[in-house]
């Protein structure tokens, strides 16, 4: 390939594809390099929760915009606006719930506190042990399994080149820009956007940048098809449980319980030590799950920096290198923040401020 691309996006998940589409619309000749399949990393294996109740206060405006994006993507990504309840099972959790949801409400989320009676009426299968609950009518979920299918189609329509199974092993800077090599193939581009989630630290290191990234490894489980047990998405005051029952009857159970492994070693592994309490918590909240079978449990990586705010901007001392990742609630916010990122690279003024990756993280 003798083409010199205007920009190479490393990482073909929601972030990378979203930004690439914006960049291509802005006239840049764009290529996406993905080590696996499009949309099959964290974008394709997360629990698909779209909940304002679990978003950070400062990121709420981005999350609200993110919800709009998902709503627009609609059926193609399996979007469902079901409303969502967050539950507290003891006084400590109730206090936490009240304190946190009040702040999130002030930040613009449409959250209210609900009575026992209303909760039981709407979600009769939940355990009658709830002490307090909050509700957000904007909450829902999308089907993360469809990320790959969706974005593959969109990037093709936008005329974006993409290479799958392209695992970057070396990046060299030269007068044209960057030579990105997978061992077998080399791609040349004037600019780089790193949007490779849990793998960002290693890729950034290839161009001499040291980003303080840690990868969390979240566990998700799914049950066989079950009779209707839930109508809304369910959360927990501590954030340690998410549940939703998809249209086909399967129940997805998440909550960020930590598995084992690192991005360098592969896709990570489920750990019994955290899987069991995760499932016990789910069973506690929804007793009818007891007789339902778990069909699969898996893990996905979520990258974080010490302040748990996104990396979205230009790298210091690297005129043509941009990073996008570490967005807490990245599945929800991704389709929006990736557009902002695209605008920034195109030299436009983004609608909302980005997050300098070279900031002081202390």
């Amino acid at each position, binding site marked *: 390939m003798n083409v010199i691309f205007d920009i190479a996006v490393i990482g073909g998940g929601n972030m990378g594809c979203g930004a690439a589409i914006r960049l291509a619309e802005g006239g840049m000749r764009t290529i996406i390099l993905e080590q696996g399949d499009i949309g099959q990393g964290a974008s394709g294996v997360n629990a698909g929760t779209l909940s304002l109740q679990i978003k950070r206060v400062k990121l709420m405006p981005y999350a609200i915009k993110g919800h709009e994006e998902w709503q627009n993507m609609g059926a193609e990504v399996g979007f469902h606006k079901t409303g969502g309840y967050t539950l507290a099972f003891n006084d400590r959790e109730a206090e936490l719930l009240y304190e946190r949801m009040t702040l999130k409400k002030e930040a613009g989320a449409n959250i209210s506190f609900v009575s026992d009676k209303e909760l039981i009426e709407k979600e009769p299968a939940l355990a009658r042990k709830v002490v307090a609950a909050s509700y957000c009518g904007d909450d829902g979920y999308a089907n993360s399994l*469809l990320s790959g299918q969706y974005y593959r189609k969109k990037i093709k329509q936008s005329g974006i080149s993409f290479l799958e199974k392209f695992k970057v092993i070396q990046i060299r800077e030269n007068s044209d820009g960057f030579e990105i090599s997978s061992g077998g193939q080399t791609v040349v581009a004037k600019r780089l956007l790193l949007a490779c989630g849990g793998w960002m630290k290693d890729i950034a290191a290839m161009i001499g940048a040291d980003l303080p990234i840690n990868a969390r490894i979240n566990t998700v489980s799914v049950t066989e098809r079950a009779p209707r047990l839930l109508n809304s998405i369910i959360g927990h005051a501590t954030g340690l449980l998410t549940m939703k029952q998809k249209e086909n009857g399967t129940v997805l159970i998440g909550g960020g319980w930590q598995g084992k492994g690192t991005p360098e070693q592969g896709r990570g592994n489920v750990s019994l030590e955290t899987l069991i309490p995760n499932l016990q918590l789910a069973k506690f909240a929804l007793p009818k799950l007891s007789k339902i079978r778990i069909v699969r449990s898996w893990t996905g990586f979520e990258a974080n920096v010490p302040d748990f705010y996104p990396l979205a901007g230009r790298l210091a001392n690297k005129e043509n290198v941009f990073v996008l990742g570490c967005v807490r609630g990245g599945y929800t916010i991704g389709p929006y923040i990736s557009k902002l990122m695209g605008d920034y690279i195109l030299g436009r003024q983004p609608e909302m401020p980005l997050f300098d990756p070279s900031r002081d993280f202390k």
Partner: protein
Amino acid sequence: MDLLLKERTMYDVIVLGAGPAGANAALEAADNGLKTLLLDEQKVAGGQVWRAKSKSILKAPSTEASEKGDELRTKINQSAIEVKFNSRVWHIEKQDDDTWLMASDAEQLTAKALIIATGSQERIIPTQGWTLPGVIGLGGATVLFKEHMMVPGRRTVVAGNGPLVFLVASEIIRLKGTVAAVVSLNNRIDWLKALPSMLSNPSLAWQGFKWIFKLYKMRVPVFWQHGINKIEGKEKVEGVTVIKVDHNWHKSDQAEQYIPAESVCYGHGLMPAIEATRLAGADHHYDELLGGWVPTIDKYGRTSVSNLYACGDNAGILGVSVAPMRGRMAALAVLEDLTGKKHNKKDLKIFDKAKKIGLAATALSIPRSGLQSFITKDTEVCRCECISRREIEHEIKTGALSPNAVKSGTRCGMGPCGGRYCSESLALITQHISKKTRSEIGLSTARSPLRPVALDDISNEIDYDKLPIPGVSPL
């Protein structure tokens, strides 16, 4: 957490699977003083091949398989092996100290070394009508024979490829059933080619030809180089149409023939059951001579992961004649790795010779690329999620070239069977469209549980306040 604080025994070795390979691995390990636990999901040892007769037919005459199984079961009873049957291992995990943690229902088991001997599984490539009641796999049929001495139906068509076709047909006759026809994808030349290597074990080769001879004597029609084009019937099997295939087993355009029947036994050979070694993190590679994807092992069964061993058909289909030896060799490797005790390497030569016979039999079972032509556009490939070939092809043609990508887009393989039955068909279809090799296509990610498990079966009731709830997420 109280669940994990429970005292657990640290075994030297846990053997997963009590067939000929696994049981012999356990015997060798225990005889050498290793603290050994043998697990199997069945009620007794013996695996599929040396399966015990069910209690209701104990008085029925013994067969070679039931006798060998009885002998093995006696040896296990007399040994120091601890056994757990009816055990459902659903999770395998390497711990930080390099030992193994496994979950069997709510029970947690730990060991320094793990030998996987999970055997083989059937390969069934769909054809029109394959989901009708009255259709069973060849392997499933042998379970009926061995455990219950039952035949599948009054008039049975036996079809597919490999030696199992003729074994199943001759067993049906032995049990006084009627074989309407044998439909073999292999032709006579395939069998003649396998003969020289099989003759190094004359009894085995003789057995194969005895089966075929018996069928001819009983005047059972044998359709060589034919496949089942369609299984017909409204609510259950009423008959099949058979069609000639070319050298690659692609359907020919010759006229079909109709055979009335009440049941169909069919399958396309055996493949290694690799879920457990994959979940444990071992490297695997594709080797069609060994039956498909196999863990990459040394001659003793050491995998790419420390303290993880594989023996028996799950490490490559070589059959029962070498399985006990493979089991013993794996146990000796464990012994050497755990204690430094060297052992006699003479075994290897005997093994190499025996391996040839196994490979010859497996050669008849290797599915050829034309088999994909039997999966018509409307044929259901994934039974759990009702996904047709048409949907799968659409997904592949729009760019989903890996099993993970097709799964995500279509849900093919996402049902309770975990893709156990459809992954092979999916790979054949992908190969047909993309022209990639099986190695390039790869496998979907292996995950727990190995079998679906109910939440109640794996987690006890909890005291909410004792749940180990980590710190809350940042505000």
